[in-house]
């Protein structure tokens, strides 16, 4: 039975050593270029490096398939190898190209590959860092439990508010109705908070004014409720508002936790939207690269 190990620690980083060997091998091969032929993809060394690179890219792509052939292989081992060997690709292919970059399909393939690899690094960073932050943020609860707590708080808040001044009640109601969690992808990623609240206030002329204002991080409603405490007149009203304040403050914590959780979850997925499409583009560019090389041979 195995205990938990991260992707990088997997079997004491066995695939890291493989990758290092591959890089060293590639450097030695590159160093064997003699003076007759400047290093480039067309030398015999270049061909070998290119073939290794091609094989690696095809193999790296198969992770997408292996991952979904459930029950057959150990995906963690594959991912660990993917990450280390994928990173070594950067060196192998750079040596293959001898960094002759231009405005052509060959360089396009190279750039696409770099995008895939760097997005991979970003993903790896997320994978290593966010789960820990997420767990800390959720504090032993699941997202579903957080939502259900929010639901309970909403009910409790509305019930308490009903017993207060109508203006306060309506403020709390609208604050709950207009609490925004999640939203579009960008909102999720940035953890943007578009919550608003409608406050009923007297304007200078003594008329009543309904004004939707921002309620970012529930600050406005908390301030509003807090301000009402010393103004309470009826008996027991202050205590009631005090309880209401506790509820809205607790709501602030829970909505913060949820927004954070959603943000982390979005980050953990969004990088793949770069990694995978660019992999496909890379494969296409690579095919053209190889065909054209053989065509002009």
């Amino acid at each position, binding site marked *: 039975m195995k*205990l938990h190990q*991260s992707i990088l620690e*997997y079997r004491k980083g066995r695939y890291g050593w493989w990758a290092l060997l591959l890089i060293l091998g590639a450097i030695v091969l590159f160093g064997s270029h003699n003076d007759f032929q400047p290093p480039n993809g067309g030398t015999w060394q270049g061909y070998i490096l290119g073939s290794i690179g091609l094989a690696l890219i095809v193999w790296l792509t198969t992770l997408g398939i292996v991952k979904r052939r459930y*029950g057959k292989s150990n995906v963690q081992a594959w991912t660990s190898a993917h990450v280390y060997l994928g990173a070594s690709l950067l060196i192998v292919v750079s040596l293959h190209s001898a960094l002759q970059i231009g405005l052509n399909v060959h360089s396009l393939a190279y750039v696409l590959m770099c995008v895939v690899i760097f997005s991979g690094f970003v993903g790896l960073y*997320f994978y290593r860092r966010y789960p820990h932050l997420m*767990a800390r943020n*959720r504090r032993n609860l699941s997202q*579903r439990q957080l939502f259900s707590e929010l639901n309970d708080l909403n009910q409790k808040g509305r019930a308490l508010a009903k017993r207060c001044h109508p203006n306060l009640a309506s403020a709390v109601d609208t604050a709950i109705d207009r609490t925004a969690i999640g939203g579009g992808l960008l909102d999720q990623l940035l953890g943007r908070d578009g919550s608003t609240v409608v406050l009923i206030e007297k304007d200078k002329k003594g008329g009543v004014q309904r004004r939707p204002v921002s309620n970012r991080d529930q600050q406005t409603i908390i301030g509003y409720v807090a301000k009402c405490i010393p103004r309470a007149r009826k008996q027991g009203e202050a205590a009631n508002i005090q309880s209401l304040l506790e509820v809205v403050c607790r709501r602030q914590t829970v909505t913060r936790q949820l927004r954070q959780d959603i943000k982390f979850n979005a980050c953990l997925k969004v990088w793949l939207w770069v990694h995978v499409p660019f992999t496909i583009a890379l494969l296409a560019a690579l095919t053209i690269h190889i065909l054209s090389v053989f065509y002009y041979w």
Partner: protein
Amino acid sequence: MTLHVHIAIIGSGPAGLSAAARAAQRDRARMEAGEISEPTHILLESFSQPAKTIQRYQKGKFVMAEPGFLHLRSDCEFGAGSREAILEQWQEDIARNGIKVRYQAEVQAITGERGNFSLALANGDVVTAEVVILAIGLEGNPRKLNIAGEGDSALADRVQYTLDDPEEFNGERIVVVGAGDSALENALALSKKNHVTVINRRAEFSRAKEANLNAILQAINDRRTTLDCLYETNPAALEADDDGINFAVETPTGRKVLSCDRIIARLGGFPPRKFIESIGIEFSSEAIDAAPILNGQYESSVPGIYVVGSLAGYPLIKQAMNQGYDVVEYIHGNDIKPADHELLEFQFGLLPYRRPPDELLHLFQQRIPMFSQLNVLVFRQLVIESSIWVALEGPSFENTKKQAAELAEAAAQRQPSPKTGKLIRAGESIFQRGDYTNTFFMIVDGEVILERHEQSAKPVRLERGQFFGEDSLVSGRPREYTAVAGSDCVLVETPRRTMIKLLNSNDQVRRGIDWIFTVRALQKHFAPELSPGELREIAQTTQLNTYQAGEPLFRQDQEGDCLHVIRRGAVTLQRSSEEGDLVVAQLQADELVGEMALMGEPVRRHTAKASVLTETIVLHRDSFMKLVNLDSSSISQLQARASKHARTYTTMQAQADKGSLIGFMMGEGMGEATNAMVIDESLCIGCDHCEKACADTHDGISRLNRSEGPSFAQMHLAISCRHCEHPHCMKDCPPDAIHRAESGEVFIDDSCIGCGNCVTHCPYDAIQLAHTPQPRQSLFSWLLKGAPDKLSIGREDADQGASGAGKKAVKCDACMNFANGPACVNACPTGAAARLAPEHLVKLVAKQ
């Protein structure tokens, strides 16, 4: 009004119905012969329709016809099918057989003796009978209101004592009487769509569970809900009214009349046991699941009263129906062979001696002293549920092998096919050390050698009449030795469930097994050189203690004069100081607790607490001293173990945070797990690949819920089967469909009848009921035959029951059929998911 009959059958479940049908057929034959002019039997049923237990199954339930190897012998028909089809069939059977039945005839008392019993019915009628067949099942009868007007037929469908589906009612005024959990749960569920009034005899709800209590109080106090409560109120009278019911109640401020549409009285039930004891029938023990004492023809300790069906201890429909048939034949003096007679012939088919099964049964029972006093019926059922092993040498093995093949073929041709004996070669192993099996073996002939693997341990030779395998049965742990069959050896292997039932109902067997367990534990831990005979006296001075989860074995700073050997369960050691309580270790079955007190330091350093239901053998100082004086061979080992313990406990003590993680795990029941899904939250990216892999490899239904379940210190116990040492789920599975594989996985086989008992018993929510899907279509066949008509998985289909696919219990089987191990763990890209045993916990914690 008095009616006199020959046979009165009480209860029209499968057992009673089948008995009545046989009695009716016998009556018909006699009437045709002109011996009698009218039927001499009566079937009395308390409900308004036959077979209340089956009526109460959920709508469309697919009823299974288990056990598969038993054939049906009854004048009524029964085969696997939907609840509705079966009930309809039985209605037809009642008419076809000419059964005389009386509904709404609850029998409340039985007095008299054979030839002259008098049965008092709830409505005041009396039935007298020469013999009585009791087939009232185990479900019991609800307690009634006992007020004027309750029996009024105009109110029959408006006053009810159960509630199957709260969704059925909408916009009614409903009064719920009662303050127990079922009353509160009904009231809460009904209040969503109806106006509900709860009537509570007392001033508060003291009998309810915490969660129900909170919910009901909240609902009562919440002015928006349509639920209110009358306290200190007693029902007084009922009256039908054009508009519904007028329900008079006595409140502290005087009589009040509630006008309502429906009354639901949830006042608890009368368990059948009280009723049966009131008749004078004796039970085999005090245990709740004990069955009445019966002779070989189902006659109870009151001559003339026969007991059949689930009440007699046979939990399935087919068994109940066969008994109903047989018992009437017995009563008529026809000593027929039970329907399972043939089964025994197959079971005994490989024995080196050929004799009729009944004789062999008798012989077997005489050979095993512990069972010699057992009731014949119970022993018979035990053998039917068991497997017979035969171990032979050289030529006789080869000869019998041919015979075994023929027998297996003959069995396979039968529909349903019976079990046959198992044949092995002498010298082969019966089970291996480390196997997770937990069956129990009795030696009827020959000998068996138990090989322990520690260097010091000598092999143990067991002979005819002795037994083995009790240790895994009791502890739920893997086998500790390899058992090797000697020549010409005959064994009875009894499944765990059968043994547990027997242990619970028979004190003699329980004592016998406890005694040998203790002797073998003492031998193993303290005195390997002594023989069981020499240990007998000391074993008698030990004590067996049982602790509920959380109960202490001993407390820190107290003086101790005994040690404990854990027999089952798990114990945590805790040290308290100013900083708080700290868990320093957790110990599993077969380990020693508190041995330090007998080896130097009498004051306990820790508090020892049971983390799950735990049993220990308590060994006092004097006995311990006597043991080590008689046999000093294990002293050095004991001392080495004690000092190692002291060292690890003290290191743990220095690391407070680690102790709290162990404490959490134990609190969540990990002490009884053997293989649990533990997710490292600091690695889990929430991709749910584990769930997808599980569903993909298990009929499209994930048996794992990754995001639910408790977490602590970034360790998450996902909801999934933990393959408990003593699986709670196995407790009342009617067809005994839940088993433990040799390698330890707990799994459910195809004989599951979908009753849902295991779902209720599993404390970890690991089981769900789901439709077992059709085999997945390949792309190729999809192209050829077109898309399947229905999505097969998890969809509620009204006609599914009829079409043959019922819901069955599904749960994690730890991918026991996959060479690569659990698919969930393999699919996890980040290494967050692992399946661990509690032994690995310490490692896990040390790593943190």
